[in-house]
């Protein structure tokens, strides 16, 4: 006690008082954060929303029904236009450049970062929704925030999981789906030996090619570091590519040219027993009119991606978010609409109708009954929680978008896996391509 001076006593007392006062101040602040932002809707407001075409019919039906509820409540008419999901980005670019078009766009990945200065600040509604529903998963802030400002509102991700035939996996000697990379490789080898191989897209597949990111990240490789310095050509990446080289001979023939639909077709055709995919394969089988494919549904199971030497999940999924353009005449109406659609009363029925195709971005929504009504969908529940952003571990923006759109990681893995280049050569080429992008 001899070291405890009078000055220390004063400091401690002031500190304790400050904490007490702060605590008192914090409580009402939190309560206030759950109060909906004041968004006086502009007179005569109408909105146009451009969103991706439905993945499942229930999605668009419920989205439209929720929108109708919003119109009945506020009087704001909302027109919904749809495009195939890879075609949203060019339309968004046109709208951003010409300063006219839809008020709200529902898009994928980091597109809003390409024209962040042209977007309405959504911090108030994002903060309100986040506080009300247990907070956003970490990756959401990466995708939706620029600095401290929310430029978009995360909707969730069309998550991918390992989709497998349980009977085939068991026949290959595995009672459970492996949770680590060694076990996964052994499983693929055993499946191949049994004549029921795995198949993963190695072509320029937008969604299903994301397993290549998982592979690189699982071994500690990444395209750039925290300061956006290109670090793809690393021992970790080489290790991942050597793994890919060992994995590739276990695949069904033709995976080098596979795009997004190929693995679905091969799986339902019985050519492969294991792939990565959204929940669509399972539901296509479950709802099939063909008794043979329908019977397959009972044998289809899902698992999260195995965890690599880095010791934590390293997944990448099709992340979707909404943003509002500044040129909109009715920004408050647009924000009110988004807020309404993200509220539990609307979001959960919509997610349920989407049969788990879209995984929520908010922690409280993991109790949605869509995850418990069919236990097979459960692994998809955690896909947003488990995912990293595609520009990991750098920032998102034009460079990360270009790297993704140029399929640099996909191509690097394909080259190394197929043996057209050694792992070292493939990593060097990827490095050159990334340097061109990140330097410009």
């Amino acid at each position, binding site marked *: 006690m001899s070291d405890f001076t009078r000055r220390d006593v004063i400091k401690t007392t002031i500190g304790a008082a400050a904490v007490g006062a702060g605590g008192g101040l914090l409580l009402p602040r939190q309560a206030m954060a759950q109060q909906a932002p004041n968004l006086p809707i502009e007179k005569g407001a109408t909105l*146009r929303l*451009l969103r991706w*075409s*439905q*993945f*499942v*019919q229930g999605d668009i039906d419920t989205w439209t029904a929720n929108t109708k509820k919003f119109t009945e409540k506020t009087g704001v008419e909302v*027109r919904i*236009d*749809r*495009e*195939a*999901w890879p*075609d949203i980005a*060019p*339309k968004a*670019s*046109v709208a951003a*450049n*010409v*300063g*006219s*078009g*839809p008020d709200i766009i529902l898009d994928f990945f980091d597109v809003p970062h390409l024209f962040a200065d042209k977007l309405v600040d959504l911090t108030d509604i994002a903060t309100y929704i986040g506080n009300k529903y247990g907070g956003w998963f970490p990756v959401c802030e990466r995708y939706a925030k620029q600095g401290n400002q929310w430029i978009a509102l995360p909707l969730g991700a*069309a998550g991918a999981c390992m989709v497998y035939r349980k009977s085939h996996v068991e026949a290959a000697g595995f009672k459970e789906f492996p949770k680590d990379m060694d076990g996964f490789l052994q499983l693929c080898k055993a499946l191949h030996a049994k004549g029921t191989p795995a198949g993963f897209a190695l072509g320029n597949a937008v*969604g*299903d090619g994301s397993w290549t990111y998982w592979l690189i990240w699982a071994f500690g490789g990444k395209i750039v570091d925290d300061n956006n310095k290109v670090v793809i050509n690393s021992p970790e990446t080489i290790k991942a590519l050597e793994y890919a080289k060992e994995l590739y001979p276990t695949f069904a023939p033709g995976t080098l040219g596979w795009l*997004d*639909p190929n693995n*679905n*077709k091969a799986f*339902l*055709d*019985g050519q492969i027993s294991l792939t990565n*995919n*959204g929940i*669509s394969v399972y539901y*296509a089988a479950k709802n*099939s*009119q*063909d008794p*043979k*494919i329908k019977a397959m549904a009972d044998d289809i199971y899902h698992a999260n991606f195995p965890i690599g030497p880095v010791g934590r999940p390293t997944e990448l999924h099709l992340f979707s978010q909404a943003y509002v353009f500044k040129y909109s005449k009715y920004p408050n109406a647009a924000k009110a609409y988004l807020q309404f659609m993200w509220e539990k009363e609307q979001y959960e029925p919509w997610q349920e109708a989407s049969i788990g*195709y879209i995984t929520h971005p908010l922690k409280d929504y993991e109790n949605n009954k869509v995850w418990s009504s069919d236990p097979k969908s459960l692994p998809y529940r955690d896909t947003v929680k488990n995912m990293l952003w595609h520009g990991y571990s750098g920032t998102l923006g034009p460079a990360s978008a270009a790297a993704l759109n140029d399929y640099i990681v996909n191509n690097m893995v394909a080259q190394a896996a197929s043996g057209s280049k050694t792992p070292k050569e493939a990593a060097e080429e990827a490095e050159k391509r990334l340097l061109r992008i990140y330097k410009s």
Partner: protein
Amino acid sequence: MTADANISTRVDNREGMQYLETIPHRLVTLWIPLLIFLFVLLFPFYWMALTTFKPNSELLNYSDFNPLWVVEPTLANIKKLLFDTQYPRWLLTTMVVAVAATFLSLFCSVLAAYAIARLRFKGSETVGLLIFLAYLVPPSILFIPLATMIFEMGLYDSMWALILTYPTFLIPFSTWLLIGYFKTLPFELEECALIDGASRFQILTKIILPLSLPGLISAGIFAFTLSWNEFIYALAFISSSENKTVPVGVLTELVEGDVYHWGSLMAGALFGSLPVAILYSFFVDYYVSSLTGAVKE
């Protein structure tokens, strides 16, 4: 009968180099290449037609069903296309846009090509070259500035947005094609008309255009086909489902995430390609003659 007698009675009716036309020779130089061409050109249509009538069970199962044949044909894919989507509307829109853009482009191209080919003004050759170079500017670069104009003119999300922008790539090509065609027409015809007192406009409408029918049809078919298949402008400038064209519409409605409704997609592609195929078949003679030259001097 001796062997010599046989030889002497054999009549050889072959003329010129016909003695070279043996069966193996014709097989190698004619029939095999022809069959390969036919296969390459017709197989996509066969595949489209086959997939259109295949039920999903056969579409996915190559182990139990022959991929090149359909065992239990179905009309379900066509029903889905025609009744569950706005395909008839998209087809109509595509037709209207393609026809209007083609006529507009041909009108402008005829005037431009005639001026460049016949009016001997300074720099006409350079102008002709520049027009062709304009064709080389890709639509993926042009669509953003064009979008600004479309929005400013209030044409966004209407058929006019396409009718007025398609000529940006149709006119340069058609003009270049017609310049070449007009150049093959003899000058003397026009000179005679001039002596008889015809104006330039009368020469164009009463002499040049009737003689250029194969060239016009050829340019028209090209323009129509390019308009019919165009994607990027139709995607960028049209928003509402009812105003979409076939190439954009089918992708929006028949691709759900990574689930492709192949049967209906192929039905859409098949029906979409029929008008172009019919057009070609009607005008194929003109088309060929336009490529082999105009009036012989």
